C-alpha cells in the first residue's frame, strides 16, 4: 500500500491550499455563518476560474478522481463554505451519468462555472428515511409534466437555479417502481420557497410545488426509473464529497484555545491530562475518518461505486465528531457556551457552534440507523429487519 497522495494529487492539493490562503478570508467565513447559507457564489466562481472545479464532478472529466476527495477534504478541513458546492457538483455528476446530451450541454457548463447552484428535493414533511414513499406527484400532459406537492429540508433552494426533484409518477405500483427524477429550474412558475431556520446557524427550506409545468427534456433517467437515479446520487454523495472530517477544524480550534486558556488547576488547559488524552483520541479518529474516506475515494477512482464504504466512513466520522464535541464542550465550561463574537468565548465561539451543528450530522445524508441497516444487510449479510 502507498498512503501518499501521489505527485499529481499532491500538486492539486497545494493549488487548493494556495487558493484557500488567498480567498478564504474572515469575511467569507463570517458571511457564511451570519447568513446560514454555506454557499458563496463569488468564492465558488473564483474556484472555477482558478481551474479547481474541473475535477470536482464525480465521474466527469479526465482528472484523477482522488482530486475530488482532495478538493472537498481541504475545503472541509479549512472550514470553508462548501455545502452548496458539494450538492451542485453531485447533481452535475448525476446529470452527466444519466442525463441526455441536450441536458448535459445546457446544464454542466453553468454548474462548472461555480456561479449556478443546485439543491436536492428528495425529503418531504412525511417521508424522510423512507424516501421511496414520497408523494409529490408528477402527471404527464403532452410534452410536459405537472408537479404538485411539497418538499422539506430543501437546503440551498433559495440560492439554487435547479432542484433535482424526486416525484411519484405511478402511485399504483410498489413504492420504488413509481418514482421519476427531474431537474427542475427553480424559476418555473408555481414553486415557492420558505425558510426553515435551524438550531445551528445553517438555514434550510420548505419548498412548495403548485401546478408546476416541467418539460420532459428535464427528466433524468427513465420514467418510473427514479430509484435507480437515486442510487447513483447516493453513491456519489456518501463519503467522498466532504462531511467526514468535521472534527479537524474542531480540534484545531480547541488546541489553540487550550494553549491560552488558564486552567483552574493551574497552568493552561493544554496541561490538563484529560484534555491531552481527548486531543490525541480526536486526532486519531480524524486519521481513521480520513482513511475510511480515502478508501471510498480509492474505490471510486478504480472504477467502483463506494456506497457501503461511504456509509462506514459516515457512521464512524459523525459519531466520533459528536463524541469529541461533547468532550470539549464540557471541558470548556462556561466560556464554551459563549457564541461567535462574544467577549471571552472559548475558541472564539467555535465550541458553541460545533455543539449546535453536530447533532444534524447523524441525521442528514441518511441517518445513522439507515446506514447501520445498509451495513447490516448488504455488508454483513444479515436478514432484512423491517
Amino acid at each position, binding site marked *: 500500500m*502507498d498512503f*501518499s497522495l501521489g505527485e499529481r494529487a499532491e500538486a492539486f492539493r497545494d493549488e487548493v491550499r494556495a487558493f484557500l490562503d488567498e480567498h478564504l478570508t474572515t469575511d467569507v467565513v463570517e458571511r457564511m455563518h451570519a447568513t446560514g447559507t454555506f454557499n458563496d457564489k463569488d468564492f465558488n466562481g473564483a474556484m472555477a476560474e482558478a481551474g479547481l472545479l474541473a475535477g470536482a464532478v464525480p465521474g466527469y472529466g479526465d482528472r484523477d478522481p482522488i482530486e475530488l476527495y482532495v478538493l472537498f477534504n481541504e475545503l472541509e478541513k479549512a472550514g470553508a463554505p462548501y455545502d452548496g458546492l458539494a450538492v451542485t457538483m453531485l447533481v452535475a455528476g448525476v446529470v452527466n451519468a444519466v442525463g441526455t446530451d441536450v441536458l448535459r450541454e445546457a446544464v454542466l457548463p453553468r454548474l462548472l462555472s461555480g456561479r449556478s447552484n443546485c439543491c436536492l428535493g428528495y425529503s418531504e414533511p412525511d417521508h424522510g428515511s423512507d424516501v421511496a414513499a414520497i408523494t409529490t406527484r408528477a402527471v404527464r400532459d403532452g410534452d410536459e409534466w405537472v408537479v404538485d406537492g411539497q418538499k422539506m429540508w430543501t437546503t440551498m433552494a433559495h440560492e439554487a437555479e435547479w432542484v433535482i426533484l424526486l416525484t411519484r409518477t405511478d402511485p399504483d405500483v410498489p413504492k420504488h417502481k413509481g418514482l421519476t427524477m427531474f431537474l427542475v429550474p427553480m424559476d418555473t412558475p408555481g414553486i415557492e420557497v420558505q425558510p426553515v431556520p435551524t438550531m445551528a446557524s445553517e438555514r434550510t427550506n420548505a419548498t412548495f410545488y403548485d401546478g408546476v409545468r416541467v418539460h420532459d427534456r428535464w427528466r433524468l433517467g427513465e420514467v418510473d426509473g427514479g430509484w435507480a437515479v437515486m442510487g447513483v446520487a447516493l453513491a456519489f454523495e456518501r463519503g467522498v464529497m466532504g462531511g467526514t472530517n468535521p472534527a*479537524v477544524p474542531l480540534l484545531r480550534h480547541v488546541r489553540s484555545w*487550550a494553549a491560552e486558556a488558564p486552567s483552574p488547576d493551574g497552568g493552561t488547559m493544554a496541561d490538563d491530562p484529560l484534555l*491531552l488524552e481527548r486531543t*490525541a483520541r480526536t*486526532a486519531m479518529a480524524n486519521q481513521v475518518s480520513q482513511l475510511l474516506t480515502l478508501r471510498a475515494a480509492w474505490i471510486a477512482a478504480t472504477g467502483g461505486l463506494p456506497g457501503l464504504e461511504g456509509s462506514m466512513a459516515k457512521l464512524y466520522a459523525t459519531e466520533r465528531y459528536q463524541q469529541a464535541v461533547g468532550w470539549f464542550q464540557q471541558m470548556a465550561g462556561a466560556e464554551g457556551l459563549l457564541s461567535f463574537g462574544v467577549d471571552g468565548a472559548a475558541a472564539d465561539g467555535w465550541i458553541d457552534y460545533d455543539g449546535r451543528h453536530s447533532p444534524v450530522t447523524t441525521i442528514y445524508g441518511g441517518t445513522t440507523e439507515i446506514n447501520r441497516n445498509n451495513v447490516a444487510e448488504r455488508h454483513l*449479510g444479515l*436478514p432484512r429487519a423491517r
Partner: protein
Amino acid sequence: MDLNLTEDQETIREVFAAFFDGETGPERARAAEPIGFDTAAWDRLLETGAPAMGVPEAAGGGGASLADLAVVAAEAGARIAPLPLVDHAVAARLLADLGDPSACDDGILAGTTIVGLAVRPAVDGVARVVPSGAVAHRVVALDGDRLVLDRPESAGAPDGPGAGHLPNHGCLPLAHRDLAGAEVLATGPDAVAAHARAVDEWRTLTAATLVGIARTSVDLGVAYVMEREQFGRPVGSFQAVQHLLADLPGLVDGAHLLAAKAAWAGDRASAGIDGVLDVDHNDVTDFPALAAMALVAAGEAATIASDRSLHVHGGYGFSEEYDVQLYYRRARALAYVLDDPARECRRLARMLPAPGAGRGAA
C-alpha cells in the same frame, strides 16, 4: 496512492493464511493455554523462514518490510496463533540494526533461539510482565539508558519454556525477567532511541494482530446470530442485534487502514524520509505518532468487536466452549500489555507540535 496489497504481499498473505489455518486456530490456542505457546506450530513455522523474515538481507534475513510483517501479523491474529512471532520479529530487527553480527546470531535467524522484547523500561533491574518473557530464550530490554540482552541458559529462565509464566487474562506467555548479569548492547541516547524504535514497530505489528482478532470476532458474531433462533427467527434479524454489529466493519477497517499506514510510515522512516505531524490539518505521516494511534485504534476495535460479538452469543459466549471468549481475552491482553491506552494517548498528545506550528488557516 494505492490501497491494495502489492502482489508480493498478496502472496505472503495467502501463504500465511494457509499456514495459520493448518497449524493454528482456536482449538490449538485453547490447547496451548495457559502459557500461550504452541511448540509444534513454532517448529513448523521455522520451516517457512518467518522468524528472520523481517531482518535485513545484509544481516542474513529475508529483508521483508514492516508492511509485509503487518500482513503476516494480521493473519496470525485472526487465528489467535499462540506464537511469539511479532516479538521475535521486532527484537531480531533491533539486534540486527545494532550492527553486531553476534547479537543476531544464526539461532535467532532460524528461530530456534526465540528472542523477545521488554516493551516497557525495566524497574529496579527487572523487566516486568514481558509479553513473550515465558518462552523467549533471550530478551532485549531497556534498563535506564542501557539496552541489554538477557540470555539465560534456557527459555524463560531458569527451567526452560514456560518457566516463570505469569497466569493471565489473555493466556499470553508473560513473565518477569531479572536483568542481573544481562549483556549490555548499547548505552546512552542511541540505546534509548533504538528501543523506542523497536517498541514503535511492536505497536504497529501488535495493532495488526489486534485487527485480525477484531475481524474474526465480527465473523464469529455474524455467523452465530444467523444460526441461533429465538422467537421463531434468527436473532440476527432483530435490528437491535444488527446495529450492535453494523458499527464494527467501519471500526475494524479503519483500524486496519491505520495500522497499514503506520507500517508504511515506519518503512519510510527506515528509508530516511521524514514524516509530518500536523493534526491541525489532519496531515500525519510521522511514524511514532501513527504507531501510537494504530495501537489505540486497533485495541479499541478488537475490544469493542469482541465485546459485542460475545454479547450477541448470549450465555454461550460466556462459556469456555465457544471460541469468542478466546478472542475477547486476547484482545484485552494485547491492547493493555504495553500501557493504559489513555496514557498512550497522553504520550501522543505530548509529541504534538504547538498549535499554529503547521500551515495557517482559519
